[in-house]
């Protein structure tokens, strides 16, 4: 007879879902973008040279598509579910980014974070808790420019 794992997600954990942090503000610095490009081997000059960006038809140097983790810092720590101390391992299972509006080097963007969902599942490796965190970046006019969903697995 199999023993079903009792839920480890408490009401207090579930109450954290949807609560958005205050915004953290980030000036997208040219030096930070240059260091990022060097680290990942991105050699297209549009990201670092304003003249090259203008010549290619951009208003300014665009932000590299994978740069967002550099400014993935909300205004205060996101409260994580305690899960009753469950699990010994945490894994970053995947990320999904949506690009909704162009953003450029030199802009100041606001980053907020919230827990989008907490679900439990019985997997091959046993009971697991899947937490999806959502980060949202808004520009100076409060338009959402980019949204990220990060899936974390606790088991």
């Amino acid at each position, binding site marked *: 007879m199999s023993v079903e794992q009792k839920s480890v997600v408490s009401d207090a954990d579930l109450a954290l879902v949807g609560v958005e942090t205050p915004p953290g503000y980030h000036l997208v610095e040219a030096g*930070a973008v240059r*260091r*990022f490009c*060097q*680290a*990942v*081997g*991105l050699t297209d000059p*549009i990201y670092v040279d304003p003249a090259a960006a203008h010549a*290619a038809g*951009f208003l300014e140097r*665009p*932000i*590299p*598509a*994978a740069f967002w*983790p*550099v400014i993935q810092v909300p205004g205060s720590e996101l409260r994580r579910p305690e899960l009753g101390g469950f699990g010994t391992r945490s*894994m*970053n*299972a*995947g*990320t*999904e*980014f*949506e*690009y909704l509006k*162009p953003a450029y080097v030199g802009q100041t963007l606001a980053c907020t974070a919230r827990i989008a969902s907490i679900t439990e599942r019985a997997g091959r490796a046993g009971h697991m808790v899947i937490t999806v965190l959502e980060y949202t970046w808004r520009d100076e006019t409060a338009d959402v420019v980019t949204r990220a969903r990060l899936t974390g697995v606790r088991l």
Partner: protein
Amino acid sequence: MAIPELQRVATTRTLARFAGAVEDFAEIHYDRDAAMRAGLPDVILQGYLKKAYLAEAVVNWAGSPQRLRRLSAQYRGVDVPSREDAPQSFTVRGTVTRMWQENGEKLVEIGLEGTDSSGHVTTPGKAVVALG
């Protein structure tokens, strides 16, 4: 239809540089002892580093970073850095899997595969690109 393949060789220097660039100093990406204590074979490539390679392959094909509408990656397997005595590379392959119209935009979906040197797909992903 396939997009051009992208191959990258990440060394421990690459991992250290990336850790500094994104200010994420999780030891499993630069301290071999810490990585092995965590049950890993060596330090491992950051998920976001691999995602940057996926993004580059798609943007190279799309012609502009502003054509990218969505990009997802799943970290299913670990990748270790290339060392002199054990060369490694990370290769991104992609295939157009769907085309459709939405809000007056022509969109294509690209199925992505980030693979290690032995051909094992460690980092599958998906991108949506708007055609001009």
